[in-house]
């Protein structure tokens, strides 16, 4: 039990240290930097032009499709890691098992490819 408790504790400690150190640097910068805010300086940067319209515009659905594919393949990928660990002990059986698992998803991927879902434009 100690083992994993330490793991999570360490990640917590390190995150804390990282946040504190960055905050310290920000504080230092705040102390020694000059600040003369002006309206022009704070305006949205668009190479000197006055921005037209909202910047929170609507995006292409494309991004969404790739994110969806990513979620599904992420789940598939995560199964490969425990499998890889026990592979040497289990041998051929494990290989066939995983071939079926991945094979089914490859069918999906081929479908996506054929339907043009992997095409960017």
């Amino acid at each position, binding site marked *: 039990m100690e083992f994993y408790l330490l793991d999570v504790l360490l990640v917590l400690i390190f995150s804390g240290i990282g946040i504190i150190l960055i905050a310290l640097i920000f504080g230092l*910068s705040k102390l020694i*930097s*000059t600040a003369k805010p002006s309206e022009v300086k704070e305006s949205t940067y668009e190479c000197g032009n006055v921005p037209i319209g909202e910047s929170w515009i609507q995006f292409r659905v494309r991004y969404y499709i790739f994110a969806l594919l*990513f979620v599904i393949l992420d789940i598939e990928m995560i199964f490969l890691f425990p499998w890889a660990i026990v592979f040497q002990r289990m041998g051929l059986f494990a*290989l066939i098992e995983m071939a079926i698992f991945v094979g089914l998803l490859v069918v999906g991927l081929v479908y996506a490819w054929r339907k043009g879902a992997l095409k*960017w434009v």
Partner: protein
Amino acid sequence: MNFSFLYLMGVAGVGIFIFIALSVLILVWLERKVAGHIQSRMGPMRVGWHGLVQTLADMVKLISKESILPAKADKWLFFLAPFVVFIPAYLSYMVIPFAPKLIIRDFNIGLLYFLAIPSISVVGIIMAGWGSNNKYALLGGLRSAAQIISYEIPRALSVVGVVMLAGSMSTVTIVKSQSSIWFILLQPLGFLIYFISTLAEVNRIPFDLPEAESELVAGFHTEYSGIKWSIFMMSEYANVFAGCALCVVLFLGGWHGFLIPKGEPWSSVVSLIWFMVKTLILIFLMMWLRWTLPRFRVDQLMDLSWKVFLPLALINIGLTGLFILGALKLFS
């Protein structure tokens, strides 16, 4: 498990931070020098020997510069984004074994931890893009996120072969199992996919579309200036180093090398030097590529990930499986 241990860990945490800061200073200098010499220039020459302390001077400048908060920006997102981008990069150093026993924590699932952590910094990048309320920043952030998630899958798949060979996900065990043969010889395809995907994950040329200067100004950090901007730069270089270091751990034998004395007090120093040299060679390769190759188009980038690397990585896993089965048959 007592307070002296926690104290030690605190020191280690600050130490890693200082290491990152120092390595970033050196890498930025190296990048400018490499860029200069590839283009028949000298690069920085004025401050210090061959401009060695130029980046230090730049750092002082960046800290003392004004940090502008755009009027239209979302204050909280704008402020928090550098943290969310930097902390994962910093945390990933915990599982890098620099030399025997020179590692913060040898997690049981160290490799998985290393691969999982960057996905949080994607959120930071989107936060920066959205929080800036700027069209360039938003587009850059979105592109960056799409690119990182697209290459995360081939990258993770390419290391499965290594895990199969080593039978473990602990980074230390992976290095130890390469004492006789480096995995690059058994996994050349895996190495190639891993290295190129890492290039894409850290947004470097030829995959630097998220901050393509000619179209997006500077991508997700267009509105950032001063110290906040430099935190983004720092995380980028920290990620470059960590990515190359893990590449060394996985494929290039980690701290193993020739001429390492056995049992001497300085033998781990020699191991550390080996590790650093290998990592620096990979980083130099990245810089070399940066000044050699043109930038990809978005559709080419996506095609490379989904239509080339993904199938190749899957084939690599299958081949590795057959190879291991064959080897087991042969030696049993």
